[in-house]
């Protein structure tokens, strides 16, 4: 039950994109068509969940015993970068089409604040290992969910007729804001 609440909280209540406003760059960048968004969502879920696990191990087995937790940020980025590179290699091999449409946003997961954010939050909240993984998964699933919903909306916007000044990213940002307004309804759902 605790795990479910943790995940629900991370997906709906404290959605990384919609309430913490982390990871906006790929959120806007790869939300133009559905298959790409689903691919990106999958990649992010994989990277964040694994990164949560590995950074937890890294923190508590290496950095803490060595009293080097001040290296947290730089070490985490290193680990995350490795994961992202790995995902990129796999994707390039297995589905070049998806790889091409993700483009620059795939390597950019590395610097995606959401990934680092989850890792750092795990440590900050002093979550035990499994909960860290669950939280990581939930946060990533929330990102994927928001991305997919947003992609659907952007497809509809692409057939809309906005004033010229608001075409493209401007309107996408307005939409993201309205979406986050709607998601505020979930606030207080899980006290976490």
């Amino acid at each position, binding site marked *: 039950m605790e795990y479910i609440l943790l995940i629900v909280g991370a997906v709906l209540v404290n959605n990384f994109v919609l309430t913490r406003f982390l990871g906006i760059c790929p959120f806007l960048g790869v939300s133009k068509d559905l298959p790409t968004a689903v691919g990106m969502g999958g990649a992010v879920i994989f990277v964040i969940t694994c990164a949560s696990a590995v950074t937890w191990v890294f923190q508590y087995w290496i950095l803490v015993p060595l009293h080097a937790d001040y290296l947290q940020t730089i070490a985490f980025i290193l680990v995350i970068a490795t994961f992202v590179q790995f995902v990129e290699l796999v994707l390039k091999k297995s589905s070049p089409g998806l790889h091409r449409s993700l483009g620059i946003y795939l390597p950019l997961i590395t610097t995606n604040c959401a990934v680092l954010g989850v890792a750092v939050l795990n440590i900050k909240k002093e979550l035990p290992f499994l909960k860290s993984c669950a939280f990581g998964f939930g946060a990533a699933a929330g990102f994927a969910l928001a991305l997919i919903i947003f992609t659907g909306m952007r*497809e509809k916007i*692409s*057939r809309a*007729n906005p004033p010229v000044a608001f075409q493209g990213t401007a309107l996408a940002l307005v939409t993201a804001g309205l979406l986050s307004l709607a998601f505020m309804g979930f606030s207080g759902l899980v006290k976490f």
Partner: protein
Amino acid sequence: MNIISSLFSGSGGIHPNDSKKGTATQATVTPPIPPLLAVSLSQHLGAPSKPLVKKGDAVLKGQSIADSNGFVSSRVHAPTSGKVVFVGPRMTASGKVATVVEIETDGLDQPFISEPPAGDWTTLPPRELIERIHQAGIIGMGGAGFPTHVKLSPPPGKTIQTLIVNGAECEPFLTADHRLMLEQAESIIAGIGVLQHIFKDAQVRIAIEDNKPDALAALARAADKLTGDVQIVRLRTAYPQGAEKQLIYSITGYEVPSGGLPMDVQALVENVATAQAIGEAVIRGLPLIERLLTVTGPALAQPRNIRALIGTPFSDLIAFCGGPRGPIGRLICGGPLMGIAQSSLAGAVTKTTSGLLVLPPEREALFSSMPCISCGRCVKACPMRLLPSTLSEASETEQDAIAEEFNVLDCIECGCCAYVCPAHRPMVQHMRRAKVRVQSLRKQRDAQKKKQTS
């Protein structure tokens, strides 16, 4: 003959005011031979016919004036005797430019062949019956104009189990098929007899909407002459009940697969008028040179069902019906839901012209450029279960890939979506545009693929 009700009821459809009262009870009349006939050589689907006559030639009634140009093509005959005064490109009622043969009639109506073909047709093999149908220039008279001899020659491996004779006439205003069924039931049944000879084991289903009980009764009476598995089927009145795919579903419960033909579900649909023409051609050796059509509409003085020669100019038809009553706003060749708007009176009757509709000017324009408000009425009305709302938006923004994904190519252009649209969007035009664009997208993609593999 018993009348049974159709077992299957398709989805979607609309119930417009059928406006048939004015002409449904009027017997067919034959106008005098017009002074000039404009016979198009592209009345059918497929390659235009090759003209066999040139300017100055004298022609006789029923004489072939154009020959098939390939397998999917048809022949054209002179509807009456006279002199050819022009052969060349002209605007036709279909809204396209086509080769037209203009005949100055001599009023003598001299026939080319006077004798019916010798011998008993029932002893002939199907191949020869089909050849007679080809020689008579018969094409689908319901609207599409597909050459009938092609339809009757399924490729090897395909069999026809259900032969559906379409007397649904679901378009509002039109009553020509209705009158044909009342006045020439015997002749239609004779044509069905010929079709039974071609497809020996096929069951015959004569489909008529339940708003024409007299036609149902007339055909039921006449059909007693037929042997084999024949039934009259009463259809629920709805538009587009008479559309080929919807009709096959109503009768057999099978959906013609996307991109497929009726023969893929072992069915064949012939319009009642076509069936009648087949009988005339095979039994009496007469080519298709005239047809019944309804000249009607609120802006016409005397709406009538008319037996018109192919090539009769629309202006003669309107004059024969007493001319317009008040100003004309639109002239439609065909029914109000699938007909073609005319930009002049220069059009002329073709083998597929089922009606001529004279409409008064509207108070407001029919279509507007208002955005879709996603009310979903078109989705409910679409008999193909498409999402016209999304498709029209995709067409508007030229998102051809979306249009393709949402199956725009399955659209039958019946017009139900545009009929119900409260935003008055030109839905059918959007669909047609998206279809053309998707097809060219596919062509491009195929070409690209070829390039990559080569």
